[in-house]
């Protein structure tokens, strides 16, 4: 499959990232980059360090070594707030929704950085606060429509099935209108049809909004079909990097991850 969309400059560059927890080496000297507008997949066997990689990118984990260059700015590690502020949003592998809140409110939280009114205005619910609330609500409703979760809009997310929660989580990340979207297994627990919708969806976001996407996924079909470039991790080391086709042909990758090619 050829990629006709234009991918731009490198906006995120990771150099020599190493991360360990006590004795466990989660990541060892990993370098790779992400270009603007591309869909970058990270694959690898369980416990390879994929989720840790995302955690490093948005500052949940601080790597012991390495450098992160994001939009020209070089640093040793990110910090979660700064990452969010500069346009990195993400979803989590173990759903991290706000369980007690409704779907609508969960997605609304995604827009918090865009809200200007201070709490006094919100308490009084004065004109501007109300207007702001409604403006954001409209945006969120668009996302809700897009994800086809209108019927559960007011349901507390704790009551939703696993798959629906995944969708809501994606919605929350999207609501932030991020520049980079980090997705950790967004399609786990979905059936093919739902995965198709989800893929379409990711592609649309990527196409229409130009959002850069970093994606972890175990479904090779999806990865091969929608990603532009793929990084392969194994035991915290990088064992492959390239287009889907290249990676697919890499014997090391086959041994470590894919098993018998299919």
């Amino acid at each position, binding site marked *: 499959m050829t990629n006709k969309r234009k991918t731009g400059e490198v906006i995120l560059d990771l150099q020599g990232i190493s991360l360990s927890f006590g004795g466990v080496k989660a990541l060892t000297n990993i370098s790779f980059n992400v270009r603007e507008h591309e869909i970058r997949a990270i694959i690898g066997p369980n416990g390879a360090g994929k989720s840790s990689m995302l955690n490093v990118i948005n500052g*949940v984990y601080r790597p012991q070594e390495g450098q992160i260059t994001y939009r020209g700015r070089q640093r040793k590690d990110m910090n979660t707030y700064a990452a969010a502020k500069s346009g990195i949003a993400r979803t*989590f592998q173990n759903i991290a929704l706000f369980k007690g809140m409704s779907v609508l409110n969960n997605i609304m939280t995604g827009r918090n950085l865009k809200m200007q009114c201070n709490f006094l205005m919100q308490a009084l619910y004065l004109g501007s606060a109300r207007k702001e609330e409604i403006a954001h609500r409209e945006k969120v409703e668009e996302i809700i429509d897009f994800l086809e979760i209108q019927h559960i809009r007011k349901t507390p997310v704790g009551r939703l099935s696993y798959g629906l929660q995944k969708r809501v989580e994606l919605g929350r990340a999207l609501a932030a209108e991020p520049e980079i979207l980090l997705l950790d297994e967004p399609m786990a627990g979905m059936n093919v049809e739902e995965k198709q919708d989800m893929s379409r969806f990711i592609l649309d976001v990527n196409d229409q909004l130009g959002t850069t996407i970093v994606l972890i996924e175990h479904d090779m079909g999806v990865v091969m079909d929608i990603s532009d470039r793929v990084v392969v991790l194994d035991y915290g080391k990088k064992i492959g990097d390239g287009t889907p086709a290249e990676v697919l042909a890499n014997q090391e990758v086959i041994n470590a991850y894919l098993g018998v090619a299919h």
Partner: protein
Amino acid sequence: MNLSFFFEVLIGGLLSGVMYALVALGFVLIYKASGVFNFAQGAMVFFAALTCVGLSEKFDLSMWVAIPLTMAVMIVLGLAIERIVLRPLVNQPEITLFMATIGLTFFIEGLAQLLWGSQPHKLTLPIEDVPIEFLMEKFNILVSQFDVIAALICAILVTGLALLFSKTKIGRALRAVADDHQAALAVGIPLQQIWGIVWAVAGFVALVAGLLWGARNGVQFALTFVALKALPVLILGGFTSVPGAIVGGLIIGASEKLAEVYIGPLVGGGIEGWFPYVLALLFLLVRPEGLFGEKIIRRI
């Protein structure tokens, strides 16, 4: 500074700390087994002591008969609590369970006074609460014999419970339950039985604490307040650690006494009410789960 006085305060504090630890143990036991902060522990201490004294006074029994009888009562109480209160609340948020134990507190307090009246009683154990003469003469340091025996009993309890938790299958199951009720049920851990056992053991610990504290303070409603002394011990040592309770107790006991004696006069005294809490708070700032508590896992 008068050195022997300092040691006296220090030792007195350490021994008081042991008494706090005794109460804290009951909390740890239940928290560890179910993630429930048992607000009713103080009431259970009171109930146990009052029942013991009540039985012995009303039916003119010797302590050696009254104590096992009370033990039986506490076991029944523990099982009943599991059956009536906890079982329907499996898998509920901890704050709900916490609240249920508050309800329980009222119930037990009412029950205790309904059964045995509201009069304070004296409780005489065959251990005398007088200074050990030997230490008195030799070093001019005052240590009560009672405290030393209490410390021994506490040590035995701590060792026993620590072994129970770390070495047995039940211990592991208890920790599993505290982590995730649903999953524990799914692997076949008989939550009901386990809670029954734990509450019964907690009842036993409450009885021991009740007897020792009762002998010191008299058996009266105020025994429920000893829980307030145990809380800072608990947070300092960690809710989930049996050895933490004893170490926390020692630290709190000693520093609270030293503070009252040496800092108290500077600020007008009476700081024992809040000092242990502030101290524990400072420790928490460094280690948010107490000295020995299990780290709270926050991974996403």
